[in-house]
């Protein structure tokens, strides 16, 4: 061995040892700060839960006890509710801080008295912890939290408050206490009579109730690896399937999907059997009513999680015939579907979104997963026959797709695809006009790293182009995802010996985030995204616009419910899996 080579080897070894030592130090510091973050978060949640419970009971003394005894805030102002709008029987107030002065616990008591004076009862009183902003020393922290009240006033009106605060909190002798607070901008009170909409499902004969897919209880389909999958499914579709001018409804279901005909007299009737559709077929997650043979009526595509997809030809007169045997529409793991004429040949093609196989796979990481069973593009070749062109079109994607939709976002005349994925990034598949697609999500700033569960195009700002609304998760434990936590995942991968398996994931995230890597964690549970289109580039304005509420959002859509000329948004929330109202 030459002297040069041995010197290089020695230096390399020394370098390696140094890297390991530094890495170890870094790792142990991270470990310490992650543990501090976790314990502060836990204490903050305990304090905020106590405060919220006190408010819910309208027990002001108990609420005041959440502030330290010698509470002295030199710069605090009264919480003032300013009327912003009053229409359709709804008053919207925005919160602002009044003239600042020195506050004690007595001032806090007076403020809470003022806030709760008109309240008859609260059905909800809680705080959502949004961020742990600082952990300057053991037993001290600065957090951002949102006060959330819902209830009834003495005058009979219902009301809801959401108001963000920054709070300085400290460990006391028995429990943590608030030592200072600051009202942040964006707080709102909305008051109304609770009239305007009424759930008339029972009155109009929509007696549908969802059922679980019985296949998940069988040996063949038991979701051994990813059990929470059993909570999925439950799409719903509307179309005028019998052409009488009244919109009908189809409820997809795990066990017994149903077609309800709108009878035009204010009621619906279950016509599943009369129409010739399956009565007790498992795993129907999504239905699309489409005129696939251009004969003037709506045929029906059914996408299934546990079995082959199905196609029914509309025979006119309100009946369908199963023509699935004539063509291959793929099978299994299907959750969502959407149609458009991607090749502009005058007929509708199908794009089908899939999840992972819950029997053998977990999402590879909580925040960036690409191990789905793959999406499919089915080209309509006429005569209700389809060809799978996924590979040549380049639209398999690989994310856990829960929202797929077409829209010509770049206004070049052909429809593009947006794919919202659970557990990680979305795709914007630009139609190149030659039968192929390119994923331009990153360069168009439409990548949206959240837990995507719905996607819709619409022009929300009336500027003539298609914006996007995407459902995600906005967790009361967004602080989980803070930078230290993300590094923790990395270290944990090393500890568990899965780093080689996980490295491509981390590298891919890095390729999208670059220097913003540490902020990635802050973004994946920040809630729904409103992506405004500006010449084919998108900007997420959800936070400013106020459309990223707390919750786990599924179907969401633009629609102008009040016919005032501006697109509103409905967002359905759900993932109730336990009795506790404190979310994960």
């Amino acid at each position, binding site marked *: 061995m030459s002297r040069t080579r041995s010197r290089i080897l020695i230096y390399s070894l020394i370098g390696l040892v140094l890297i390991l030592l530094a890495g170890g130090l870094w790792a142990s510091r991270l470990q310490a700060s*992650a543990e501090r973050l*976790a314990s502060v978060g836990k204490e903050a949640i305990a304090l905020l839960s106590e405060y919220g419970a006190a408010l819910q009971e309208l027990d002001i003394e108990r609420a005041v006890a959440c502030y330290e005894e010698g509470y002295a805030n030199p710069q605090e102002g009264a919480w003032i509710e300013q009327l912003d709008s009053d229409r359709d029987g*709804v008053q*919207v107030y925005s919160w602002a801080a009044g003239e600042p002065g020195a506050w004690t616990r007595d001032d806090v008591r007076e403020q809470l008295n003022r806030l709760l004076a008109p309240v008859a009862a609260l059905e909800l009183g809680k705080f959502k912890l949004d961020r742990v902003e600082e952990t300057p020393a053991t037993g001290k922290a600065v957090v951002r939290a949102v006060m959330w009240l819902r209830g009834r006033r003495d005058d009979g009106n*219902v009301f*809801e408050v959401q108001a963000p605060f920054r709070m300085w909190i400290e460990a006391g002798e028995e429990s943590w206490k608030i030592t200072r607070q600051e009202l942040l901008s964006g707080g709102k009170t909305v008051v109304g*009579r609770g009239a305007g*909409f009424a759930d008339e*499902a029972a009155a109009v004969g*929509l007696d549908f*109730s969802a059922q679980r897919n019985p296949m998940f209880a069988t040996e063949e389909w038991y979701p051994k690896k990813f*059990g929470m999958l059993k909570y999925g*499914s*439950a*799409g*719903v579709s*509307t179309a005028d399937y019998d052409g009488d*001018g009244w919109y009908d409804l189809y409820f*997809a279901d795990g066990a017994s999907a149903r077609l309800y005909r709108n009878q*035009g007299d*204010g009621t619906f009737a279950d016509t599943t059997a009369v129409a010739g559709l399956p009565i007790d077929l498992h795993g129907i997650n999504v*239905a*699309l009513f489409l005129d696939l043979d*251009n004969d*003037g009526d709506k045929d029906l595509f059914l996408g299934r999680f546990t079995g082959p997809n199905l196609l029914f030809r509309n025979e006119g007169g309100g009946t369908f015939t199963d023509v699935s045997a004539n063509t291959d529409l793929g099978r299994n793991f299907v959750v*969502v579907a*959407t149609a458009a*004429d991607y090749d502009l040949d*005058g007929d509708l093609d199908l794009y089908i979104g899939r999840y992972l196989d819950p029997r053998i796979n977990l999402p590879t990481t909580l925040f960036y997963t690409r191990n789905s069973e793959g999406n499919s593009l089915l080209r309509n070749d006429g005569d209700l026959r389809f060809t799978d062109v996924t590979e040549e079109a380049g639209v398999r994607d690989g994310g856990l797709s*829960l*929202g*797929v939709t077409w*829209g010509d976002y770049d206004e070049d005349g052909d429809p593009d695809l947006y794919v919202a994925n659970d557990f990680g990034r979305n795709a914007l598949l630009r139609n190149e006009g030659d039968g192929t697609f390119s994923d331009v999500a990153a360069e168009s700033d439409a990548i949206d790293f959240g837990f995507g569960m719905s*996607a819709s195009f619409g*022009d929300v*700002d009336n500027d*003539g182009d298609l914006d996007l609304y995407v*459902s995600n998760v906005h967790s009361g434990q967004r602080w*989980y995802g803070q930078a230290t936590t993300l590094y923790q995942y990395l270290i944990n*991968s090393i500890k568990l010996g899965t780093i080689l398996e996980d490295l491509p994931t981390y590298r891919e995230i890095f390729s999208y985030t670059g220097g913003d890597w540490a902020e990635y964690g802050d973004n994946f549970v920040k809630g729904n995204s409103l992506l405004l289109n500006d010449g084919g580039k998108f900007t997420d304005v959800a936070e400013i616009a106020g459309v990223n509420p707390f*919750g*786990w959002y*599924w179907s969401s859509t633009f*629609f*102008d419910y009040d*016919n005032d*000329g*501006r697109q509103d*948004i*409905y*967002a*359905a*929330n759900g*993932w*109730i899996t*336990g009795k*506790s109202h*404190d*979310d*994960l």
Partner: protein
Amino acid sequence: MSAVAHIDEYKTGFFNSDEYRGAMSWNGWEANNLMRNEGPGADGIPRFSDVALALGSIREGDARGVAVADYDNDGDLDMAINHNPGDNDILERRKAAFFRNRIGETRSWLAVDLLGTRSNRDAVGAVVTIEAAGERQLRLRTAGSSFASQHSQRLYFGLGEHSRVDRLTVRWPSGQVDEFTDLEARRLARITEGGGIEILSLAGASLEGASDAAEPVAAEPVAAVAAP
């Protein structure tokens, strides 16, 4: 539960087990949101207020799919919602919801139906824009969006207090552009690719012909007004 514990349990899959979660719910029992567009702020970005509770469209459920359409043909959009069955047998949480809108009908509107000829017959992908009192609105004809949902293909435009639409343009997938001017509000415009238009009234219980016709801008023949 701590964030660190959460990380440790991830790879094993334990995090998604019922045992790990205990009484904890994956979500915090939040409800559905109806976010009203209050118009643009000084920066041009629209601002929203959640009016779901104030307007009665709130329900403690485990919602999934939503299908929006004018189910009662009264000129505004209603919501049908499917729910997840979950692990429990609580019927109230599994039941479909049907929120009938009683707000939109107090204002003016225009509904548009499209029939493709060169384009796909459903006219999916067509974009309709209208101008009313100097304001522009756009709607896209879709088939499958949101989460596992399909909404009304008939498109609805809210017109506030306006009684007419000054201009309506359809951009069909084939590239064909049809334009119409001066349409009366509170009507259903049924447009066939290539310029045909029928103006119908949505009379709540039944569709009946109305006497107003729209003049197409192009020298295309206007279809006779007809009752279905």
